[in-house]
C-alpha cells in the first residue's frame, strides 16, 4: 500500500519545527506503524537525508517508549494499544497520515517526535516507593492481600508511562498517569505506610508540570492500557485526606 506522511520535524529543543511530507510507496499492510517508519527512515538514510527521530523499545506494547499523535489521536485510531501495536492495515491505501509529537508544556520536544518525559520520573520519585525491611529476603506471600485489592491494584499498575493521557488531554493534565501510579501502591497493604505522604507529594509534583483535570475523560480513551478515570476519583479522595492528615502531622513536629 502507498501512504503519504506529514511529519513534524524539529532539529532540537526550543528550535522551530515544521511539517514535512514524505511519500511512502509499497508498504506492506502487515507492517506495524513503527516498521513503516523504519522503512521510511531507511529510504531517507539512503537519500542522505536525516531520518525521522522517534522513540521505541520493546515493540510489544509494554515499555511505553513509543508514542505519537497519529491523525489527531494518541497512539493512532486503534483503541487500547500503543503505537507499536498499530498496523498499517488500519489505514486505507493512499491515506494521508499526520504524525506529531506529544504536545504539552511538561513534555518539551527534544527532536522530531521525541519528547522529554522526565516530568513523569519526577512524579514517581516524589512518592512511588514503599518502605521495606532490609536484611534477608522475606518469605513470599507473607502479607495477605485480598484478591479484589490485588486486581484493582494491577488494573492501575498496567500503566506503562507512555504519556498518551497528557497528550490527549485538552488541559495537558497528567491526572491519569499520576492516579495510576498512586493507586497502584495505595490499594495494597505495602503502600499504606506512606499512603498520604505519597498522595500529597505526587499530586503537588504533578501540578508543578502539568495542567488540571476538567473531567473530559479523553485520557481514558487514549490510554493504551485502558486505565479507568475511576482511579482519578481515588486520587481526589486520597488527596483531600492527605492535606488534612499531613497538616495535622506537621503541627505535631
Amino acid at each position: 500500500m502507498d501512504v503519504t506522511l506529514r511529519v513534524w520535524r524539529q532539529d532540537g529543543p526550543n528550535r522551530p519545527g515544521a511539517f514535512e511530507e514524505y511519500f511512502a510507496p509499497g508498504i506492506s499492510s502487515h507492517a506495524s506503524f513503527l516498521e513503516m517508519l523504519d522503512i521510511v527512515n531507511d529510504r531517507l538514510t539512503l537519500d542522505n537525508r536525516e531520518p525521522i527521530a522517534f522513540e521505541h523499545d520493546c515493540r510489544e506494547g509494554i515499555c511505553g517508549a513509543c508514542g505519537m499523535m497519529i491523525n489527531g489521536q494518541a497512539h493512532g485510531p486503534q483503541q487500547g494499544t500503543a503505537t507499536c501495536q498499530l498496523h498499517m492495515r488500519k489505514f486505507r491505501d493512499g491515506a494521508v497520515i499526520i504524525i506529531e509529537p506529544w504536545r504539552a508544556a511538561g513534555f518539551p520536544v527534544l527532536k522530531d517526535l521525541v519528547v522529554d518525559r522526565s516530568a513523569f520520573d519526577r512524579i514517581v520519585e516524589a512518592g512511588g516507593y514503599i518502605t521495606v525491611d532490609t536484611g534477608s529476603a522475606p518469605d513470599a506471600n507473607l502479607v495477605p492481600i485480598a484478591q479484589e485489592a490485588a486486581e484493582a491494584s494491577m488494573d492501575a499498575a498496567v500503566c506503562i508511562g507512555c504519556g498518551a493521557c497528557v497528550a490527549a488531554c485538552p488541559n495537558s493534565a497528567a491526572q491519569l498517569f499520576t492516579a495510576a501510579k498512586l493507586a497502584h501502591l495505595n490499594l495494597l497493604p505495602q503502600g499504606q505506610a506512606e499512603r498520604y505522604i505519597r498522595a500529597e507529594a505526587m499530586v503537588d509534583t504533578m501540578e508543578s508540570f502539568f495542567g488540571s483535570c476538567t473531567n473530559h475523560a479523553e485520557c481514558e480513551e487514549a490510554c493504551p492500557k485502558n486505565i479507568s478515570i475511576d482511579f482519578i476519583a481515588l486520587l481526589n479522595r486520597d488527596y483531600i485526606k492527605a492535606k488534612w492528615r499531613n497538616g495535622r502531622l506537621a503541627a505535631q513536629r
Partner: protein
Amino acid sequence: MATTEEAPTRRRYPWPIEFYRSAVGKKWVMALTGIALLGFVVAHMIGNLKVYFGPEDFNHYGEALRDLGGDLVPRTSLLWALRIGLLGAALLHVHAAYSLTYTNWKARGGRYRQRDYVAVTYASRSMRFTGTVVLFFIVFHLADLTWGTAPVAPDEFFRGDVYANLVASFERLPVAILYIVANLALGVHIYHGTWSLFQSLGYSHPRFNRWRKGLAAGLTAAIVLVNLSFPIAVQVGILEI
C-alpha cells in the same frame, strides 16, 4: 567547610487554604460550590412555577421569601444569609475556574495540527464559555427583576409586584430571547457540571457511573424546560396582566 543548609520550609497555612492552593483542591471547591449553586437553580425554578397559579399566589411567594424564618428571626435576615452564602459560592466558583483556566493554558504545549477528540462533549469543551454567558446573564437578570435598574428593567417596574414585573419584562421580545439563550447555556453548563462533580469529589464507581449521565440529562432537561416555559408563556399570552 561543610555547610548544612536547612531546606527552606514554606509556612503551612491552615489545611483548607493549603488545599485550595492546589488544582485538585480547586476542583473540590468547584464541585461543592457547584452543588450549592445547582441547589439554588432548582429551588428558584420550583418557586417560579408558582407564577402559573396567578398574580396573588406568586406575589405572596415573593413576600414569603422575605419572611423566611417567620417570627424567629428579624425579617429578611434569613434571605440575606442565603444571598450572601450564594454570592460567596459564586465568587469561589468563578475564582477557581479562572485560576484553573490560567493553569491549563500555561500547561499547553502548542496546538495539534489535527486533533480528533473521542470522549469530550460539546458541554465539557464549552464550560468556560457557557459559564461566562451565565455570569453575565445573572447580572442582567438581577438588574431586570430584582433591582429594577433602568434601562434593563421594564418601564413599569414596581418593587414587590413580582408577577407584573415578570410579565412586563418578558413581553419584550429581545429580552425573552435573551432569557431563552441564557437558559440553554445554563443547561449545557449544568449537564457537564452534574456529571463531573462526582468525579471531582472522588465518587466514581462502575456501579453508579451509568446513573450519573442519566441524572445529568434529567436535571438539565427539567431545568431547561421549566425555565424556558416562562418567557414562552408570556410571549404566547398564557401569562398576562
